[in-house]
């Protein structure tokens, strides 16, 4: 039994003799592995982009919205009524054990002025939990506090887009801005989130204390009403349970019964995430599958050339057997050659695949995700292709009759 090292030397020598042929044979594997890597990288990059966008809303969320009401035979659409109150939100937080954070909010819009700059943005009246629920980071200053909410203070948190448009370079912290002509102090700055899955700029936002918004800024006829309540379950496992608890509580509070239709709706945002992730996963599996077909084709090319190589070197095989090579020595020699071909092709393909993925990333602006796993799997796969498609030719070589092989012209 020769050592693997010897077989490797012999294989290298054999490949050096037919450089062009070796390269062309490798090409199949290069393209196969390159395509698999690029496709998987692009596919998983795309799916990560989508799931990032979705999770930028926040995770394990239930969104409670006012429902439709019927008045005089006319049904309003969802959210067509104002049935949710701050008290509902507080009750949810107090009474539902599976619920972690509860963020009621009211929404409005208005002109904001600082110095000689002005900007129209989205205003939210929120409680401190909003930052937790939406997974915001606060890059400077502080969050809105419960005493801000209770005392209806004129403090606000501003998003990055607002910072860019109003302050353009100067530090907004502690500055007074006028929101709908009312002066507010900037107490904190939100970190950048980017676009929502729907393409909205999530950073174009100002958060003010809920009470302040209700009473002073968005002046509603029902001062206790909130536009929506975001409910965050304690973790993903209890999300469904949290939904049941919230439903039960709200049914009770709103006296929902046979004579009263349900006046709120609950949306489970994680379902959206799951569906989207599922579809992008399917896409990347599909891409990978198509690419691996080319790998199989490349493998057949390897087998073809190895068969030619065995025939060409029949005499050499005969000499080796006569001189004392065992069957497995001959097997090992040709298997090594095939595996060397495919792994070289695999490495080149890997580099090209990574380069291709990067190129696509920079051209289309998609993120690409090249995991170490993909690389290891691709490498292992290319070696596996070598073993699989090299096995038959190697066995054929090892089974040669030395007497015939020595006479072979």
């Amino acid at each position, binding site marked *: *039994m*020769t*050592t693997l090292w*010897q077989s490797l030397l012999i294989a290298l*020598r054999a490949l050096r*003799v037919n450089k062009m042929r070796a390269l062309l044979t490798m090409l199949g594997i290069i393209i196969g592995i390159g395509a698999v890597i690029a496709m998987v990288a692009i596919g998983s990059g795309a799916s990560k982009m989508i799931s990032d966008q979705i999770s930028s809303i926040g995770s394990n969320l239930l969104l409670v919205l006012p429902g439709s009401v019927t008045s005089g035979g006319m049904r309003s659409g969802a959210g067509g009524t104002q049935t949710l109150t701050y008290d509902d939100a507080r009750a949810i937080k107090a009474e539902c054990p599976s619920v972690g954070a509860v963020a009621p909010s009211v929404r409005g819009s208005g002109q904001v002025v600082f110095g000689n700059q002005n900007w129209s943005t989205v205003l939210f009246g929120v409680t401190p939990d909003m930052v937790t629920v939406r997974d915001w980071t606060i890059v400077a200053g502080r969050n809105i506090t419960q005493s801000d909410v209770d005392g209806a203070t004129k403090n606000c948190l501003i998003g990055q887009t607002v910072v860019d448009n109003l302050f353009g370079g100067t530090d907004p912290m502690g500055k007074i801005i006028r929101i709908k002509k009312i002066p507010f102090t900037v107490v904190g700055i939100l970190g950048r989130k980017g676009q929502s899955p729907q393409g909205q700029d999530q950073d174009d936002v100002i958060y003010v204390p809920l009470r302040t918004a209700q009473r002073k800024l968005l002046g509603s006829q029902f001062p206790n009403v909130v536009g929506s309540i975001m409910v965050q379950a304690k973790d993903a496992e209890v999300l469904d349970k949290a939904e049941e608890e919230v439903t039960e509580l709200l049914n009770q509070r709103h006296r929902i019964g046979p004579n009263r239709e349900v006046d709120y709706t609950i949306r489970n945002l994680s379902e959206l995430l799951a569906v989207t992730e599922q579809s992008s996963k399917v896409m990347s599996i599909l891409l990978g599958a198509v690419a691996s077909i080319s790998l199989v084709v490349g493998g057949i090319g390897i087998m073809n050339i190895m068969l030619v190589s065995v025939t060409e070197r029949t*005499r*050499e095989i*005969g*000499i*080796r*057997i*006569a*001189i*004392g*090579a*065992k*069957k497995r*020595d001959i097997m090992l020699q040709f298997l090594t050659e095939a595996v060397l071909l495919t792994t070289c092709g695999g490495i080149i393909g890997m580099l090209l695949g990574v380069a291709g993925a990067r190129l696509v990333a920079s051209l289309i602006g998609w993120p690409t995700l090249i995991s170490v796993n993909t690389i290891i799997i691709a490498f292992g796969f290319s070696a596996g292709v070598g073993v699989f498609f090299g096995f038959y030719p190697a066995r054929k070589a090892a089974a040669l009759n*030395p*007497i015939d092989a*020595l006479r072979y012209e």
Partner: protein
Amino acid sequence: MDEVVRLNDVVKIYTMGEERVEAMKGVSFTVNRGEFVSIMGASGSGKSTCMNILGCLDVPTSGSYLLDGVNVGELSADALAEVRNKKLGFVFQGFNLLARTTARQNVELPLVYAQIPAAERKSRALEALEKVGLASREGHYSNQLSGGQQQRVAIARALVNRPSIILADEPTGNLDSRTTIEIMAIFQELNRQGITIIMVTHEPDVAEFTSRHIIFRDGLIISDEPYQAKTAVPPVEVEKL
């Protein structure tokens, strides 16, 4: 006497489709250590088949072959490979060196399969090349060598694992008469050093340099006699041997 080879009533039958060819019909002979035997006969006489069996490339249909007292017919394929590697050295008519491989690498080949470490391989290969007068050509590729030189490399390859016998199948068949004498001189010198050599040839001139003639006809030995070997007078180039 020290017996190296013993063939007992060896029969070899090839079946090629419908046709049965009896290549050897019951051949017995023994070879003692240090002999220089030539096996002769017309083509189809069974001498090549005999050589293949002696070389453990083929096994007898019936009868037995004892090499150094071991019944080769009972050995597994791997064990036969080891016998070929350690006990036998082959010299072929067509030289059969590996192409694009240096003389030394060719000589090292049996040692590779014997799993000898690289440093020892090198020194033993050089030693064997020395014996055939080609130490200075160790780095030459086989295609850069003349026919006679290639055959000498092949002899060095046969020698390198210190075999019990060297089997030579028409070793001078592809060589001109002067080179033939060179090669025969090398064989005679090796024989003088105690190496057993069995050579197949159909040229009586070549057989004259050996000390025993076995003649085959139609799968049987028709004569087996000692012979007063003629000394191969080495041409000038190989005198340094």
